[in-house]
């Protein structure tokens, strides 16, 4: 099904914290868009998927900023198809706390409609929330939860 699933850390509005910076030199934050989690079907191509996911953030950023600008309804978390490449389709999803999920599927896989992708993201979101509820997880750390891993694994394994 999916060939790559990624979770990307949140973006902190840097300016908003600037005032704090002047007080303490070194309070630093979970910063922009770094990968919390990334799994691919083929580990030997992982670097390529890293690039694919990373470049898709351009579109995510653009979509998120236009979303908040134009619509008053912030509930739609699914961003849809970010961009098609020759071999893959990249889909995006952003939670209310600005955590981004990116799923890459093969372009050849026409069985996957929008609805299936949405379901996938919803599952991923639930898994992420469960993982986050773990009191031993520090926000901003890489995700190592086994349950989360299992969910992702299932998403990539099916058919």
């Amino acid at each position: 099904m999916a060939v790559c699933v990624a979770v990307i850390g949140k973006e902190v509005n840097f300016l908003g914290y600037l005032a704090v910076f002047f007080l303490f030199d070194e309070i630093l934050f979970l910063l922009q868009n770094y990968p919390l989690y990334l799994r691919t079907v083929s580990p030997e191509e992982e670097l390529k998927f890293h690039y694919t996911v990373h470049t898709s953030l351009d579109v995510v950023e653009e979509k998120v900023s236009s979303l908040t600008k134009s619509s008053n309804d912030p509930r739609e978390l699914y961003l849809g198809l970010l961009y098609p490449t020759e071999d893959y389709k990249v889909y995006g999803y952003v939670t209310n706390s600005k955590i981004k999920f990116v799923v890459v599927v093969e372009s050849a896989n026409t069985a996957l409609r929008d609805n299936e992708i949405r379901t996938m993201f919803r599952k991923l979101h639930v898994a992420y929330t469960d993982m986050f509820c773990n009191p031993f997880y520090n926000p901003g750390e890489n995700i190592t939860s086994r349950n989360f891993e299992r969910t992702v694994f299932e998403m990539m394994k099916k058919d």
Partner: protein
Amino acid sequence: MICCVLSRSSLQDQNTKVAVVLIQKNAPLPPGDDLQALERAATLCSACDLSAKSLFVLPHTDHLIGYTIRLENAFYDLAQSYYHGECRRVKAHKEFLNKGTHQLLLVRHQFKVAFFNELRQDPHSAVKHYRQAYSLLGELKTSDINVLEIKIVAGFVNYKICRLSFQASAPLDAISQFRKHVDLFKEKVGCPDLAFEHSAWLSKQFSLFGELFDEAIRNGLTALQTQHPGFYYQQAANNAIVRRQLCQGLCHTTTPLSMNPLENAGNLDFFGQRPWRQGFQGAEPPDAGIEHAGIIALQAQEIQVDHSWIIIPLLSSAVAQFKKYKSPRMKRYLMVQMGEEYYHARDFSKALMLLGRVTWDYRREKWWSLLTSVLITSLRCAYLVGDMQEYITLSLELMGRYVENSPEEKTRCQTNLIQVMSNECPEPEPGCDFDAVEEAKELWKTLKVTPQTPQVFTIQMEQIAPFIECKAVFDSFTTTADSTILLQIYLRVTCPFPIRFCKIAVFFSNQFYNQQCVVETGLIQGEGGLYLLPAKTKVIPFQLVPQPEDVGKLLQVTSVALELGSRESRCAVLVWSGWGGETAIVNNYFVNYGLKSASKEDQIDWDDLKIVSKIKIEPRKPQIDIKLKHEPPALVNEFYELQLVVESLEDTPVKDLRVWLGFQDEHESAENAALIYSEVPAAHQAVGQTKSFIEFTVKETNQKIERSYFVKCSQVGSRTVTAKITYSVDVQVEPNSPPVTCTCVKEDSVVIEIVMPFEISLSLTNLKLERLDQVFEEEPFLLLAGIKCTSPWPVTMVTTTLNMSPEVGIVGEEMGSQLQGSLCSRWRRTSAADEFPVVITELTFPSVTVESVPFAIQTDLPAYGCVQTPLSVSYLVRNRTLQVQEVEVTVEPSDAFMYAGHKQIQFRLLPTGDHRLKFSLYPLCAGFVTLPKLHFNLPRFQVSWDEHAQKMVPSNVFIKPRGRELGS
């Protein structure tokens, strides 16, 4: 005319038309007028076998434009009708074609029709026929023999369709056509030995479509972030990269054969056919030997191609597009690809430069995996070009914990770095080209330093995510001038092996401290000094004594420099700077949090360690006691004693003690409202130094200073007296250090309440003690002054003087209308000594009106009378004016008296003259009895003077009872 005939004969078998344009110098006459011209034209036409419609005249005059437009239209019509005809002619062939046998011709036929339609500027039908051609092409059976030809023709047709669609403002049609095209042929590789041909073809398709798209955008089409030419250029580049890879796998240099199968490649009848078997349409190659030779020749040709110079321009076009459509990350990715391509093209320094531009962003976004791959390529480049600065910088990163390469790689990297620092050649990077490595080895040998020219590299650590981290921590945010500052430099390395540094230096905002914070470990061996173990935090403490000039300022660590290697040969100076400014925050943040520190055995949690690079140096706490003794409240205008006691609690004598005593924040109050005196002025020399503050300095003392000051406030209220003390003292901060001079400041203030010493009330009465609102000319009155002490202290009135204005005396002469004067009291506290100056308080009387009365009455009455004893009373009425006055006097009867005299009388008084009225009274009863009332009336005046006259005469008299005779 000859030329006309000539051209006609050469065009004979073509369906052509001839038109003749005569260029005429003179302006033409209106049509029909010039009969001769008409005749000549007819002759020309008949001679050349021209229709009259094909003869044109272009007068070479001023209105050339109009004529040329007309000419253009005429030619356009001719051309259009020609193409229309051709189109019809070609269409008519269709019935001769059938699908079974002429499948290839059908494609050609549709293409021709479409092309003529395009020429006659009918894009709509052109697209229709191109599409038909394209779909017919799709129906063809492809084999390894003809697939190249089909793809090439499909490419042409597709190009035409896309181009016309873009021109017709139907970009979506163009895009979907192109998608279809690519999807249809993507898998049709053809001969596996010539797979690079397919990639080349795909690359070409993408780049051509990208160009078409780009052109459409220049003509006004708007593209999206997710749909713009950049994607197509990128795909073109990707396919070109695939082509290069395939070529590397498939092609080998061969010795040229005697017979070149590609000799006719330049002039083929049909595009896309193999030169060695033109026009062949069978399913199997006619001659396997020639086929093989052809493939070898094509491979040999391919290996000559410099692929990088196809890929790089495509990538750079893509970069430009992604930059335009706000996709910085995609742009960076393409730059990485470009860098890698330069690496393949062996332009290592350019690759290094390009890759260097993107690493910062990957670092900032903490995509360590991407950073690692970029850094590894960069390190190879740096090795191959022998760029030592870059090599060291990249090694610093590739050894550390952020980079996701294997521990073996890190070890290798560290070994190489140590090699380089100890003036040796590093081992070559794996995966490099053999020839390039050989060149690089030579290069590194030449880079070895001679002792005369040591190499020093300065590396800014904020810009990279290095294997060594440094934090500067002051023990607190503030300190006082007399205490030592503890600065701790925390260092931690995350490389696989221990590493030794030779020197650490800390730089401060005040350069004075710099030389105190240097550690050089030339001699120390073993575990000591700057020998850092992996994942163990090293703390280097420094103790500083604040400098007097820094008091009140912020001391800041501006940078820390750590030296690796030796100054004599190669030395890398790792500089951490800018913890202070805001840029530091931006530069430094990626170092934190991204990964949790791995070492659990480390006693210091590195990530929780907060940098404290600034410390505020505050003045030393003063060890001195100030007391202001006084007894409140103060009285207005008195010299109020204020005792200042300054007692030094310092261990050493204080120096340059400066005391300032005075009133603060009272500039708005009136001058001299509050004054301070260092001593009581002598009684009569009042004004001398009048200041609102007093200052004095003491050179050196360790004793108690007691001084009395006097404060004089002329207003009721409260005043604040402040004493400020500044002094300097030598403090021994450390047992053996030279003493530091600290300046201390202390301030103390007291609030003084000021009250009035007494209240004075003044009242005016007449002689009968009745209150007066006004006094009368030449009439005596009483002034009563009531003085009430309101001070809590007893007050001695030394003297009290009544200062009258000249109008008032015992008897005045000139009378004004108003009275003024003052009461002046001189007083002092009863407790004060006699020589203490008296305070003079002067109270000005309220003004009072003096009225003039035209007459005066003087009464002559005995002090008392006795019952039944006659009592004589006389009233002397005097005229005070210079006019004659008429006076009427009536006397009321009284029950207490019988009397003799005028009961009613009228008389005249001459100016200043007088008249005496005499009455003999016979008292009838005893007691304080009312006298018969006299009524005065002055008819000359409007007002009644009677009431006033009543006040001038006594109203009662005391009558004694008659004495009893003794014995009776």
